């Protein structure tokens, strides 16, 4: 599984909604070996500054045939703020593709994607891939419509597409887990759930899936220093032992059973 640490030129970086950016860089080498659910580590510091010190992990959101990769991200702190100031033509160092992405399960004709807020980021490539084969159900939730400005990228992929927002500004008023409950009531036959979003949401999704005996893959987040298994910092407790999963190396996508959901950081 080849990985590359390359200086990538910024093609564009529009602000899609308040604090949400879509960064597109040219990185053909990374693109060629990228799988749905994988991520990259992006250098956010300027020039020779060492503050912020660490790179930031971002999921690969979209790829284009011409070697372009896009990252969909939210400005939440120092690092993402600096990144958002970068302009087309500038260079940003990108290390990737990293981690184990989603595993496609052949005997599951119905795939339910559950995304919360910017947790949709790793799901687009997956949705595109699934779309070529089985039945794709997409459920997306957010606080309000402006938190998910790229929703059109998903809505065209399948007619089984539902949105819930807490303030009702888009789709149904409520939580994405409400949508999932409805879906689980309706579907018959084998299914597979893929989810990414805030920890409490994923936890709820997993417990709902387990009740129905539906396998569930989750994409986790953890603070990372290296993204490639060197530092052992990105630990998440395992469900079955004293040990830890390492989000960057064995993840970020895990079978939800593996994770100790009761551990709160």
């Amino acid at each position, binding site marked *: 599984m080849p990985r590359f640490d390359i200086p990538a030129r910024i093609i564009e970086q529009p602000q899609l909604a308040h604090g949400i950016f879509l960064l597109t860089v040219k990185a053909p080498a990374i693109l060629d070996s990228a799988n749905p659910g994988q991520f990259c580590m992006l250098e956010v510091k300027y020039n020779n500054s060492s503050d912020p010190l660490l790179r930031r992990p971002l999921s690969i959101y979209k790829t284009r045939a011409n070697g372009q990769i896009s990252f969909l991200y939210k400005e939440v702190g120092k690092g993402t703020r600096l990144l958002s100031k970068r302009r087309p033509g500038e260079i940003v160092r990108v290390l990737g593709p990293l981690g184990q992405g989603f595993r496609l399960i052949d005997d599951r004709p119905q795939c339910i994607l559950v995304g919360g807020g910017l947790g949709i980021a790793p799901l687009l490539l997956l949705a595109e891939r699934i779309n070529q084969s089985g039945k794709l159900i997409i459920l997306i939730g957010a606080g309000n419509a402006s938190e998910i400005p790229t929703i059109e990228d998903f809505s065209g992929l399948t007619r089984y597409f539902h949105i819930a927002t807490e303030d009702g500004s888009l789709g149904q008023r409520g939580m994405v887990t409400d949508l999932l409950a409805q879906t689980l009531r309706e579907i018959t036959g084998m299914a597979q759930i893929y989810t990414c979003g805030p920890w409490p949401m994923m936890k709820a999704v997993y417990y709902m899936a387990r009740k129905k005996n539906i396998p569930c893959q989750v994409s986790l987040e953890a603070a990372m220093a290296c993204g490639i298994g*060197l530092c052992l910092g990105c630990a998440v407790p395992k469900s079955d032992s004293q040990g830890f999963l390492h989000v960057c190396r064995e993840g970020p996508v895990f079978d939800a059973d593996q994770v100790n959901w009761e551990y709160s950081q």
Partner: protein
Amino acid sequence: MIHQKNPITQSPNLSIKIGSLVLKNPVLLASGTCGYGTELDGLLDLDQLGGIIVKGISIKPSPGNPPPRLVETPCGLLNSIGLENVGIESFIGDKLPWLRNVKTSLIVNILGNSVEEYAEIAKKLDGAEGVKAIEVNISCPNVKAGGIAFGTDPEAAANVTRAVKKATDLPMIIKLTPNVTDITKVARKVASAGADAISLINTLLGMAIDIKSRRPALANVFGGLSGPAIKPIALRMVWQVVRAVDIPVIGVGGISSPDDALEFLMAGAKAVEIGTATLVRPGTAENVLAGIRDYMEANSIQNVDDLRLPE
């Protein structure tokens, strides 16, 4: 400043000696920041480096501390990994075979909970094919027993040194903690107890509080501070220890660029270890090595040892 008057014709000689150990150049990867080597495959050409010091190994496998284990600080990184590692048996069985094929000197970092444990691990490594030296970590701030407790007490540090010396014929580097009042005291003790070399510094004990959750940011409360922030402290201690003992000193702490490495070599370090900088940019060590070579060529310095400043 040394001007480029007579550009040398031979390429500079970067090889160094640490006791009986010959390294092809003075750039090593620091323990805990290069995994077991494999993780860097394709991102850094290990064959180019002077050596690789693998993650600290204990007798038994250890899961390490609960998360969160990492916090970024200004120009620094706090970690509380807590010596998660596969244990000596699995290291020899599963990791060593791959490492034997790498054309660099393999140094194994070890950590015990008692003097006996240090000796036991050292003995196990003594016969292990491919292992070129041992780095004895008496400075880990992230484990309850052992670790730093040995490094802050000169007498205990000497005891570990003697025990490991007895247990193995491998060259032995003692890695010191900076969390002490007088680093030269510990350094002198381990030198006279038979250490072949000293490496320093391990991380400085630090902490951070998450003001949003109103809790210590690390589950373990305290962690070890590394990265560029600590470079001035590391350099000062290396300078002091170089002038206090007669054995080789290896400098580590915040080295990210060739200029950083040159500061340590000028202070008298025989070699340098790259730690946190590898986490930030996997190729750092190669870049540092190239920069040292360039500087030596530009300034007509033939041997890397000659970088040391005159007293």
